């Protein structure tokens, strides 16, 4: 019974990570997602795929970093991954904002120039 449950969640995890990777690749193929933004998501998908394929890995990792309850290590990895992605987003938004400012200024100045002619 125990084994069946563990097997179930393992299959679910493998399918889930696989679907994430396929979904991201599909978005890139359809040009809905730029490669720059896909790499972190793909990386996370691969990490979860590896963890679900080799179950011992998570136990070893949690023992190594000193986490008593292995599933908690899973959350740690997940949250860290999401944090990295979110910071990446903040950087990207800041860059966009800067570009947006420059474009707006340039447009305003150009309009003035054409009006003055």
């Amino acid at each position: 019974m125990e084994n069946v449950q563990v097997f179930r969640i393992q299959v679910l995890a493998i399918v889930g990570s696989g679907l994430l990777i396929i979904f991201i690749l599909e978005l890139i193929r359809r040009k809905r997602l730029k490669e720059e933004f896909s790499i972190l998501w793909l990386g996370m998908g691969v990490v979860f795929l590896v963890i679900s394929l080799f179950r011992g890995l998570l136990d070893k990792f949690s023992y190594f970093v000193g986490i008593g309850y292995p599933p908690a290590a899973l959350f740690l990895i997940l949250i860290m991954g999401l944090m990295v992605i979110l910071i990446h987003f903040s950087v990207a938004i800041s860059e966009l904002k800067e570009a947006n400012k420059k474009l707006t200024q340039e447009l305003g100045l150009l309009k003035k120039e054409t009006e003055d002619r």
Partner: protein
Amino acid sequence: MGKVLPEDSPLSFSVGVVVTLTISPGRYIFLAGLIQEFVKKIIIIPAYNEEDNIGRVLTAAEECCPDFDILVINDGSTDRTSETARKFGSVGVIDLPVNLGIGGAVQTGFIYSRKKGYEVAVQIDGDGQHKPSEVRKILSPLLDGEADVVIGSRFIKKGSYKSLSFRKIGIKLFELTNRLLLGERITDSTSGFRAYNRKSIELLSKDYPDDYPEPEAIYFLKKKGMTIIEVPVEMDTRHGGKSSISLVRSVYYMVKVFLAIFVLILRKHD
């Protein structure tokens, strides 16, 4: 480009004379009084939804400062700010298609001033808080070469300006920080009533903070070796509209400015 004048036309000659006179700062010493008349000067007025105030500001500016060009930066206003400003024949208007915030708007003015070769830029807020009649006060130390930047301060001498108490605390805190970090007494860090010379225009046209730029700009300019002095001026309490600074925002203001100053100190080379 427009028509190119032939080299020997009288018009191009006179243009050439003015340009050479205004460009070399070294000659101020010899011909100070004469050249001050010829120096290209501009008043930059950032305005966001100021249709109620901009007319009065522009009337006063035209009256007090006929030797200045006047430029309104309409920062994506949704009201008739631009139309109102355009009724003044001598006033130039730059319409920004989206709202950038005060920093982005004022910087547009600096870029314009740099490109058009202005030697002096005076910034006046579009809300009527700054009196154009006070422009001469912040202008003269700049023209005399005493400073690269002149800030009009409400606090050096008691003026008619009434400030809310929590804002005053913030401003006092800035003053303390200025004294600690710059070793200088700058009493009105948040004042946007400022005069800039060519060097500082060039610096700020390339790098200017987005929001609540005034206190941060002081540190940036000092870091770049500019001399900044303060001059007492009188300011009005707001006539109409609403100040862009509420209580919650002023907390954000403080945090943002101190963070920016901290980072500016960390960022040694750029």
